[in-house]
C-alpha cells in the first residue's frame, strides 16, 4: 500500500452515522455502527481512485470527525 495520505477518524467526534462507510469501500461498520477500517486502526490509506470519495466523506461527515492526513502511524 503506497498511499501517501490517509483518512483519519477522530473517535472523540465520530458518532457512527455511517456516511463515510457508504462512500468508501475500505470502510465497513462494526456491530455498533462505527466505521471499521479494513486493516484495523483509525486511518484508512487512501488509494488514488478513492481520493474524491475521501474528500466527500470529509466534507459530509455530519460531526466533522474526518480529516485527511499524511499516511503514517501517528503515535
Amino acid at each position, binding site marked *: 500500500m503506497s498511499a501517501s495520505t490517509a483518512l*483519519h477518524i477522530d473517535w472523540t467526534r465520530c458518532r457512527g452515522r455511517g456516511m463515510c462507510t457508504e462512500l468508501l469501500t475500505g470502510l465497513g461498520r462494526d456491530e455498533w455502527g462505527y466505521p471499521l477500517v479494513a486493516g*484495523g*486502526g*483509525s486511518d484508512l490509506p487512501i488509494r488514488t481512485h478513492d481520493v474524491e470519495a475521501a474528500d466527500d466523506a470529509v466534507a459530509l461527515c455530519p460531526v466533522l470527525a474526518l480529516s485527511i492526513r499524511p499516511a503514517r502511524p*501517528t503515535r
Partner: protein
Amino acid sequence: MSSTSTPDLARATLGVPRLLTGHGPGYGEHLRALGPLPQRAGLVDEIARSGLTGRGGAAFPTSTKLAAMAPRGVVIGNGSEGEPLSAKDELLLHNRPHLVIDGLLATAHALAARRLHLVVGAASEEPVRRALRERGDADAIEVTVAPDRFVGGEASAVVDLLATGRGLPKDHAVRLTTRGLRGRSTLVQNVETLAHIGLIARVGGERWGAVGVPEDRGTRLFSISGDVAHPGVIEAPGGSSLRSLIAPSSPQPVSAVLVGGYHGAWVGRDALERTVGASSKHGAIPAGAGILVVLGDRSCGLRTAAEIAAYLAAESAGQCGPCVNGLPALADLVSRVADGDRDPRLPAQVERMAGLVEGRGACHHPDGTAKMVRSALVAFADDVAAHQHGFCRAAR
C-alpha cells in the same frame, strides 16, 4: 564535562540507587548531596548521549522528543500517575522533589521554553509546593493537581487538563511537540525522566549511562505489588531480570507477572529470567511505566485479568464509540472465561473483540486493554483449557 564532579557527587549520582537514595526531601540535603544545578550548555546532546528513554510508559527516546521542540514552548512534568498500582512518581515527588524540579528547570532552560508546568496527583501537591517554596529559582513552575483517573496520565489528557481543566485525551492531528498547549510546542515528560535529567545535567550523559546495558541505560523505578510480602518501589539498573526485580519483595511462588501495569502484558513464570527493558528489542519484556504485579500460584490469573479488564472498561473516558462499547463487551467475555463458562467459542470471541477495539480510540486505552487481555489468554492458556473443562487450578 566532568570538571564539576566530586567524589561525593559521583557517589550520589552514579550508583544504584541514585533516585531512591536515603536522604530527606529538603533543599539543603539536596544541595549537600548534589550541589547546585549547573547551567549546562548542550544538555540536549548530553541526553542524547545518555540513551535515556521516557519512564512514563511509552519508552520513547527522550532526546528525539527534545529535538522536536521549538523554542518558546511549554514543558510539562507529568506526575499524574493514573495507574492505581504505580507508586513510583508519588514516591519520587515526596522524597526527591528537588531532583524532579532540577530536571524540569534544566530541560526548560535547554529548550528556551516559556512555560513550565508540574502536574501531580493530589497526594503529592503539598510536598511539591513546599519544595518549590524552598528554592528561589522555580517560581515559573505552575503546579496543577490531576484528577485521579486512569487515562488522565495520557500526554494529550494532561495538556487538555491544563487547557480546559477536564483532562480528557484528545485526538491529535499533529504531535504535541509541534502543536500542544494553546498551540505551542509542548513537551510532556514523566517526572522520573525529569529526575534522571537532573542527574545528567550534573554528570553528563556518558557517565549517567555507564550503569545498565547498552539497550537500556541508567536505572529505572519499579512499583511492585500483588502476591508479595513487601510491596513497594525499587530502583534497578537496566538489563535486570524479572526474577531479580521481584526478589526483594519476597514473592509467593510465582505463577505469572503482569509487567508494565494494567496496559502491560502477562508473562508466565518461564519468563522470570528475561530482562525487563525499555522496549521489546533484544528479547526484553517492555517495562512500560515500571509496574510489576506478581501473581502467586494460588491465585487465578484469569480472575485477576477479568477484574482488571472490568476496571479498565469502567475507566474509559467515555468519548470514543468503539472504546465505550467494546471495552465492556471485552471485559464481559473475559469474565465469562474466568467464571468457567464452558462455551468453546469464548476464547475466539475474546480474541475478536480485542481486535475490534485495538487502535480505535483517541488514546491508547483500548490498545492497552486489548494487549493485557490477549497476553492473559497466552500466559494462562492452561487455565483457559482448565476452565473450559469445568475446573480452576487456583480453586483447590
